[in-house]
Each structure stands twice: as C-alpha cells, then as structure tokens.
C-alpha cells in the first residue's frame, strides 16, 4: 500500500506483530522442548529451556507404541481418500460447470448443503449405516465416510477453477477431434493443476487429521489412524506428556511440511471456497 506509516504507527505495528509471533510460537516451542525431556525431568526440573535433551520419547513411540503402524494406516486412508475424492469431484465439477441438463442446479445446491452439514449431526446415523454395510472397523469404511467432507469441498473448489478456464478451450479441443471427455482430461484438467493441488492438500490433511469418525469406526488397535492412536496415549493422567508431545510432533510434521510447500495454492484455494478449519 502506498500510504506511509508514521513512527508511532510503526511501533504499534511491530509491537503487535511481535506479540502475535510470541503467541503463535511459544506453544510450538513448548511442545518441541517437552518432547525432548524424560518424564522425570518434566516434573522434577520444570523449565522453559531444554533440560538434558533426549530422544527417548521418540524411541519409545516407535518401539513400544508402534506408532509407525498408525502413520502407515493414516497414509493409506488419507491417500486413498484423496485419490478417490479428487477424481470423482473433478468429474462432478466439470459436469456442473460445463454441461447443461435437468437437475443441474439442484445437484449443485445439494453439494453445497452437504459441505455445510455438520458431522456432529451425521456421526450417529453413519455409525448405524456403516455397521449395516459391514464395513465398520475397516479402512475402506473410513475412506468411504471421509467422502462426506472431502467430495463437496473439492467439487466446490474445482468448480471455481474450471469456471476460470474459457469454454473456447474445450470447444477448440473438440474441433481438433477430442471428445468432450478428451477435452476435459487433456485441456481442462492440465490447466487446473493449482486447483487439483489445493484440493489434494485439503483432502489429505482433512483425512489425516480427522478424529471423531475414526474414533467411532475403528476399534481394532492395529487399524488405528494417527489422531486416534495419539488420543489413546492419554489415559487420564499426564505422565506421558513427553511421549504425547513427541507423537504430536511426528503426526503434525508431514502435514505442516505439505502445507508450507503448497502454501501458494492453499491460500488461493482458501479464497476460492472457504475451507473447513
């Protein structure tokens, strides 16, 4: 912006930004140093500095608690959800943006209302339905259920991207001999890569982070996803604080790296549709 700030305004701006940075970073710093302490040191030598740093929590997490199993489960569920969801959403979004047919507006509205339907309303009947379909306690069941939040969001976001691509491109491709689907796959999709990345990031992180549905549908300890595995580390007391903080870091790191790599697309996508926080 062109307006220059006065000295006082600058002091206020930098002062508030410094406070903001402290507010954001202090908890993250606390998590990191706590994960590097033994239970004994956490209670005997309470300190905001790293005291006797050790990797014992991380070793226990992977050794005793088999946390890599949970990571593998979450990778399977989140990747499969992303692939299925982005694929079917791209088809739906193209159909809703480019093709004209009866019920089209109705279908569009249904997708938006689905996006806004709270999972707190759906989880009880979903528990019954998933049990009836015989897919409770399986990863397939979880992947299927995760489409409730991922497909409407992805469809909505991709509709925005597809609308930004001139219809002339499709028609030109069809003049050049493509079928309509050919035009979609060869012209529209390659031009929508930023949108596809944004959707994939949102879907992957959404599935990776989801706790409530996973808590309800997965009861077999061997199938637990990361959030459920971490929440089972809490047993009423805080004796495992170091371990839980280590688990938190391990579960957050892949997602946060993904976010910062894709930051540009994520922020664009956010503007395009509004994203479940």
């Amino acid at each position, binding site marked *: 912006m*062109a*307006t*220059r*700030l006065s000295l006082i305004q600058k002091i206020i*701006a*930098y002062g*508030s930004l410094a406070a903001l*940075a402290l507010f954001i970073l202090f908890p*993250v710093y*606390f998590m990191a140093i*706590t994960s590097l302490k033994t239970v004994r040191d956490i*209670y005997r030598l*309470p300190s*905001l500095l790293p005291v006797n740093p050790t990797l014992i929590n991380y070793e226990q997490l992977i050794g005793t608690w088999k946390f890599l199993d949970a990571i593998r489960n979450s990778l399977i569920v989140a990747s499969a959800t992303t692939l299925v969801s982005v694929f079917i959403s791209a088809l*739906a979004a193209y*159909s809703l943006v480019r*093709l*004209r*047919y*009866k019920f089209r507006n109705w*279908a569009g*509205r*249904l997708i*938006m*209302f*689905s996006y*806004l*339907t709270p999972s*707190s*309303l*759906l*989880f*009880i*009947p*979903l528990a*019954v*339905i998933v049990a009836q379909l015989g897919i409770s306690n399986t990863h397939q069941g979880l992947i299927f259920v995760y489409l*409730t939040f991922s*497909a*409407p969001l992805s469809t909505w976001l991709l509709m925005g991207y597809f*609308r930004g691509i001139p219809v002339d*491109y499709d*028609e030109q491709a069809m003049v050049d001999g493509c079928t*309509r*689907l050919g035009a979609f796959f060869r*012209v529209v999709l390659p*031009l929508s890569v930023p949108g596809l990345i944004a959707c994939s990031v949102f879907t992957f992180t959404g599935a990776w*982070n989801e*706790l*409530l549905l996973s808590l309800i549908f997965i009861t077999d300890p061997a199938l637990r996803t990361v959030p459920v595995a971490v*929440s089972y580390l809490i047993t009423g007391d*805080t004796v495992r604080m170091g371990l839980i903080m280590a688990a938190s870091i391990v579960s*957050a790191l892949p*997602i946060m790296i993904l976010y*910062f790599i894709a930051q540009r697309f994520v*922020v664009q996508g*956010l503007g395009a549709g*509004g*994203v479940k*926080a």
Partner: protein
Amino acid sequence: MAQSTSSRSLAGLKAPRFSLGKTDAALGMGLVAPVLICLMTLVVYPFIFAVYISFTDRTVGAQVVNFVGFDNFRYIFGTQGFQESVRNTLVMVFVLQSMKLVLGLGIASVLNQAIRGRTVFRGLTLLPWAMPAFVAYLLWKYMFDPTQAGAFNMILIDVFGTQLDFLSSRELAMPSVIIASFWRGFPFWVISFLAAMQNISPELYEAAAIDGASAWKRFRHITLPSIQHVILVVTLLSTIWTTNSFENVWLMTGGGPSNATMTFPVLAYYGLQTLRLGEASAVSVSMLPIFAILAFVVVNLLLKED
C-alpha cells in the same frame, strides 16, 4: 501454453456453437453421479435417518423400535447436561467468534501495511492452522497442565509462587478452551481477510489520504465496506464449524469439570457411547434449526457471488 495458441489462431473466427443435445445431458448426469451417490448415502440418507431416530426409542441392538414422538426431546431438554451444553456452546461460539472477528481484522490490517518482514509473518500466521487440530489441542492441554509441568503454571510459580487449575476449575476451564480454540482458528480469518484486503484498489486509500482521512476512517469507510461480503461468509462458515467443534473440548477437558465445558457435539458423542441412539440423535437434531438457517444464508451468499 499450447492450448492458448491454438485458440488464438481461431480468434478471428466465430466459435462454433455446439449443440448441447441428449448425449451431453447423459454425460453430465453420468459425471456428477458418483459424487451424488456418495452424498445421498453419506449425507442425505443419514441426515433423514438422524431426524427419524431422534423420534424413536432406538438403542444399539434393539429388536423393536418404537416411535415415541417428542419424548426424547422432552427428556433431554429437561436434563441439566443438555441445558448446560447449549449454554456453553452459545457462550463459546459467541466469545470465540467475536475475538476472531475483531483480532482477525486487526491482524490482517497490520499485515496489509507496507512493513518489513510481512511475508514471514504471513507464513507464521498459517502455522496454527496448518497444524492438525488434535495436535493443537493436546499441545494446549499441556500448556494448561495443573502441575508445575504446564507452561503457564511454570511461569506462575516462578513469578507469583502460585499455580492455577486451568482446565479443572469451573471458572477457568471454558476461558482456557476458548484461548486454545482461538489459537487454532484465527489464521483462517486473518488469511481470508488479508486476501480480500489485497484486492482493494490502492487508489482509494491514496485519495483518502490526500483528503486527510485518519487510519481509522480509512479502515471504517474503505476497508470494511470493501470486504464486507468476505467478512460475512467467513463469519458464517466459521460459526458452523465452531458450533460443531468436537476435538477442542473432547481432548482438553472431556466436557468437564462437571459439565463446565460440555458442548452439544461432545454430549452427543457421550450419548452414542451409552448406545441410546434416540436420545443422542435428539441432542444433535435439536441444533438443526440453527444450522439450517446458517447454511441457507451461506449457500445463497456463495451462489450470488458466482
């Protein structure tokens, strides 16, 4: 891009009109079908089912299910747990959303200024939001730990020689959950507001500055009116998610101490665990009118935007 050159070569010609005949209609419905079938099975049917169950005495494993009219609603409305959960949810949502709105606008305005290091600060603002919610709330649970191991009590003991039961006292539990939820939730607001503010033409501000408008007046008369649509959409969307949030309360307090932080999604989850599905559904369904209104307004706002 190859596509743009090929279309430019035809720029002089009138684009051929494609007849959108029966095949297009069939293709269109075929392409949208997978998503629609998923949503029918996973949203629409469960939605109707939830409303239906809430009027029955269904329990897990019950052979006979009876229609009981409004009995479940009458029963839960009379319980202290439900009344407290509705009150807590309203308090939490109102306080949190006010904080996010005011501070979100403030932070976005500062980040929109020509200051050094703003790219770094913008990236930093994304951090709590990029963190999985369950990690953020576990982290804050231990920040608020009642013993000397918690970050805040460590400081309190050092400075004042005293410690506080943040999450296990009736007075402090809700404010603590609200602070943690704010930490995790505010970036969405800041980033949405900032994106909208960057679309405002700088000339508007220049003209206002020449007229001698103060910073507050520029904010009040240029920034706010220009981004009011985004403010509305963000507030409504976030209100739906915040009213529904399960992880913050579940991981930090479990609804305690003695229901002081009980919100209705957590109450419904406890209801599911007791296997009395009718009553548990009635808890969620009783919030439906509020969501329906919010969702209806958002959908119409977003569709108008297109």
